[in-house]
């Protein structure tokens, strides 16, 4: 008879999450046709704002941000948007609906972290494709797409990591709703709409009308795209950069705790579907 096992040590947990990450990454490559379809969709999605803005600048060139600055912004925002694409709500929603969540909860690892690890594998897969967009943009826009300075690039990387965490934690908070609605679709759509509106994917928040701009400043979405891209392009400097990074950190902590509290409640009332 094997002796009873006590909780995993931090090192053993790390090994477990790494192992899960490797398997999730392998699973990301399982559906080649779907990958190609989503790539084509993404190209379309990021080409549309570029074309729209091109038309706007043709008619009115004296906007708050010049065309030379705007296009690198839109290109980077598109790349980031793609790299931050994760199937958290879809994956968890589907598993709740089919009752497969039961098998996730039977694993000796933390559900929130395990889902995060899978989101990282989504991110790496999408990030590689995002880099392809970036290099295609470089062909058209030249050195304007480069970071403002080596420091800006360094801080951007840090800000992007935080952006990734914020994105995942937002998804995780939203998907708690699926424990009550038993479908992730409506939640995915709601989060997606807010994300598209307030992250800065279509335009920097400076162009937004007053109330939308204020709402955007109070919500975490802008820290997923607008903040890291602004740092990269040198639109914010000095202490302002650190202020934004501190805000991102605060959102990471807040959303993590909120996700945990909601998860405990969700699991308490959960019913596993399908007998």
């Amino acid at each position: 008879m094997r002796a009873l096992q006590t909780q995993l040590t931090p090192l053993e947990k790390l090994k477990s999450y790494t192992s899960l990450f490797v398997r999730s990454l392998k699973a990301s490559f399982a559906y080649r046709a779907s990958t190609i379809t989503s790539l084509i969709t993404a190209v379309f999605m990021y080409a549309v704002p570029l074309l729209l803005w091109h038309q706007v600048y043709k008619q009115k060139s004296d906007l708050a941000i010049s065309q030379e600055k705007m296009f690198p912004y839109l290109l980077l925002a598109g790349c980031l948007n793609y790299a931050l694409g994760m199937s958290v709500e879809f994956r968890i929603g589907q598993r709740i609906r089919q009752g497969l969540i039961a098998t996730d909860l039977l694993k000796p690892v933390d559900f929130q972290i395990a889902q995060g690890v899978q989101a990282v594998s989504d991110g790496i897969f999408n990030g590689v494709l995002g880099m392809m967009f970036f290099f295609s943009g470089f062909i058209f826009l030249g050195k304007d797409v480069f970071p403002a300075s080596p420091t800006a690039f360094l801080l951007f990387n840090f800000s992007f990591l935080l952006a990734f965490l914020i994105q995942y934690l937002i998804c995780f908070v939203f998907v708690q709703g699926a424990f009550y609605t038993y479908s992730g679709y409506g939640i995915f759509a709601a989060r997606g709409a807010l994300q598209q509106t307030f992250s800065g994917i279509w335009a920097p928040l400076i162009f937004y009308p007053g109330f939308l701009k204020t709402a955007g400043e109070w919500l975490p979405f802008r820290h997923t795209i607008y903040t890291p891209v602004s740092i990269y392009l040198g639109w914010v400097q000095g202490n302002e950069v650190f202020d934004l990074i501190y805000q991102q950190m605060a959102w990471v902590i807040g959303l993590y705790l909120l996700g945990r509290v909601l998860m405990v409640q969700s699991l308490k009332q959960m019913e596993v579907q399908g007998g």
Partner: protein
Amino acid sequence: MEKALHVDHLCKSYKRRIRQPGLWGAFKGILSSQFEEVEAVKKISFSIKRGEKVGLIGENGAGKSTTLKMLTGIIVPTGGELEVLGLIPWKQRRELALNIGVVFGQRPQLLWDIPVRETFRLLKTMYRIPDEVYEVTYKEAVKRLSLEPLLGTPVRQLSLGQRMRCDLAAALLHAPAIAFLDEPTIGLDLSVKEQVREFITDMQDKFGTTLLITTHDLKDITETCDRLLLLDKGALLFDGSLKNFEKKFANESRIVAELQQPASPAALRKLSEEMKRYGGRIITSEGHRLVVEYKKSGSAPALTQILLKRQKVADLTLEKTDIETIVTRIYRRPSKD
């Protein structure tokens, strides 16, 4: 012997939305908030010792899977107490998970898009299975469940039977202290069912794993368990050994006769009256086949003599009621609700 799990007045009820039939009903269902309370498990109490092999049976909706979900910590009970390996499942789910193996027959725990081998490797790390244990469990599973040709195949390409075998192997790779197996032979053909039962028994023998199996195939129970829990509409109707179960419920035996000629209605009436005096009852008379059921032990010789005297019998057998028949009868009893 040490307790593996203990359940005391365990309850689980949940709310179910009341939906009206038809398209209009479905539309109204979106707006309405009418619920009914369903009591899935009603104050059940039992204990299982380490190393015991217990079968949990009951009709569809009797509360078997709900009980298992509470024992594994997936869902939270609405009342009562439960302890598994000294832990409170829903509060210490992750710690408990390291010590239990679970198969939910209809829910694969294998990673869907990658080969089976990959899930096994992941589980080895996740459950920190020592090499010497993994060596035994992995080899045994691959050999006994004929998994070799399946190891490199993505799970989504496996048939139900193949997936079930892999799932069972995955659940027992870490030689858990308790294995909760919810319908482990569902969808399997007869020879594979046999393979699965043998594998479960072997693993139990090797590692002293406590078994709790729910199933609708009673052969799973008779071949792997020595104790039975019978749930009926959420309540525990029986808890004891298989022998005691038969003693308690199998109070009827049968004489099955193959007559040389079908008995006439008049002869049957006479036979029936005579047999009544010895506690016998004709339950089937179809052509040449005649079945007599009797309750009183010791009635068989008298009933057989009457039958042989009144009819020309080509063949005759005495049948003890098997466990499957008993359970079917219990399920068919009119509800007391």
